[in-house]
């Protein structure tokens, strides 16, 4: 899933427009918190999804897969708010909480809308660009170094995990649930050891290129047209205005 999101960020139609997309996402995120909450969530969610899929041309499957994991948490929260445990009687019983359902729906809709905005950003802005952007904003260099290393290491470890898993399957390491669990344990342990070895070798590799404590690289630059910024700001402003009107009329 990570690879699909990253590929989408690298290949989408707006990959060079980091600034305008960032502005659009911040604006839409603010809109999700405006009243009336249900309308705000539905409107911002719909606009964000349409913009991501039709504007940036992000594949629907990638967008939905990226949304799936956070939606699981939203679903758990929704269940906890919608139902309550009744302790009167011989056995505890589960019952619908009438006062909790509207709150659950509001918070679920708002969470889905806000998560959609985040997924829109993840699927349209390459990591190297937003890290560069943070570096230009003056984030401490240690954090920038960590972000670069984490971004690179995630994909190296993912490749190693895949090769280790494939090798384990070739030797029937997944023939029973117990074997699967054992294989997963070995895989985790193997990855930990490999990570330590790799960290040591990477340090040696960096030292060979005169590393002296800071992973300084040329930061990616983008030059977006002012019209892109204007459009990126106009959409959230229009949403905000619509929500204001809706709030007054209701």
């Amino acid at each position, binding site marked *: 899933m990570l690879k699909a999101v990253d590929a989408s960020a*690298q290949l989408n139609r707006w990959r060079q427009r980091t600034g305008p997309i960032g502005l659009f996402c911040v604006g839409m995120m603010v809109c999700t918190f405006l009243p009336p909450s249900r309308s705000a969530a539905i409107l911002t969610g719909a606009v964000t999804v349409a913009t991501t899929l039709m504007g940036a041309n992000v594949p629907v499957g990638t967008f939905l897969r990226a949304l799936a994991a956070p939606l699981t948490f939203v679903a758990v929260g929704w269940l906890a708010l919608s139902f309550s445990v009744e302790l009167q009687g011989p056995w505890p019983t589960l019952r619908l909480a009438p006062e909790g359902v509207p709150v659950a729906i509001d918070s679920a809709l708002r969470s889905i809308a806000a998560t959609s905005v985040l997924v829109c950003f993840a699927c349209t802005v390459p990591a190297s660009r937003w890290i560069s952007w943070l570096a230009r904003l003056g984030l401490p260099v240690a954090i920038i170094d960590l972000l670069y290393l984490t971004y690179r290491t995630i994909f190296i470890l993912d490749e190693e995990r895949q090769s280790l898993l494939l090798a384990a399957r070739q030797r029937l390491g997944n023939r029973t649930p117990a074997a699967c669990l054992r294989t997963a344990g070995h895989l985790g342990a193997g990855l930990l050891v490999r990570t330590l070895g*790799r960290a040591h*070798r*990477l340090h040696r*590799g*960096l*030292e060979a*290129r005169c590393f002296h404590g800071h992973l*300084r*690289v040329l930061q990616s630059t983008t030059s977006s047209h002012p019209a892109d910024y204007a459009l990126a700001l106009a959409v959230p402003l229009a949403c905000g205005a619509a929500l204001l009107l809706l709030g007054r009329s209701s």
Partner: protein
Amino acid sequence: MIGAVFEISSLHYAYTGAASAHALCPAQRKEALCGITLAIPHGIRLALVGANGSGKSTLLMQLNGSLQPTSGEVRFEGKPLDYSRSGLLKLRRSVGMVFQNPDDQLFAGTLAQDVSFGPLNLGLATHEVSDRVHEAIEKVGLAGLGELPLHMLSHGQRQRAALAGVLAMRPQVLLLDEPTAGLDPAGVAALIAQLNILHSSGMTIVIATHDPTLTSRWADRVVSLHEGRLDLQDS
């Protein structure tokens, strides 16, 4: 080819813990390098050959100061290597090393960012770094891929990316550890062509390899290692 860029005399090296490993596993010998004496002339194309574990990579890492001899001496341009932090930084401005596994060297978000790392560490101005990055990426045949993240490159492309990262520093000596590992014949041919261009510009190139094509068609001199000892020197 006047004078020696490297002079190695009576070089011994043992990895930490190797003695205890030897007790448990006889295949793990006590010393990785045993009494190596070798002169590497300026402008030469030298191939280090030998079986796995013969000490080729260890010898390369002695040349760029990644490892310090247990005894013996390595001299660069007539002076003993200085293993202090500043001494190593000075050495690595002149001696670049490309490691066997490119993932041991590549760390940044994109190819261009990774290639810029070395030149920025040399203290060059941003515009100079940018020029060098473009030039190095073009030299290794990866033009147009500078903004791609490294995990989107193939293994062969990553090897070339690692080479670009070192070439951008314009070293005087280039050390390459198994540069043809994982490359197809076309990739090997392209690498040889690239190395010949670098050599014609006066660069000294030392390669650790198993590849007979490199040793027979490319190298001016072949040095064979066996269990950490010099076995044979062909001219």
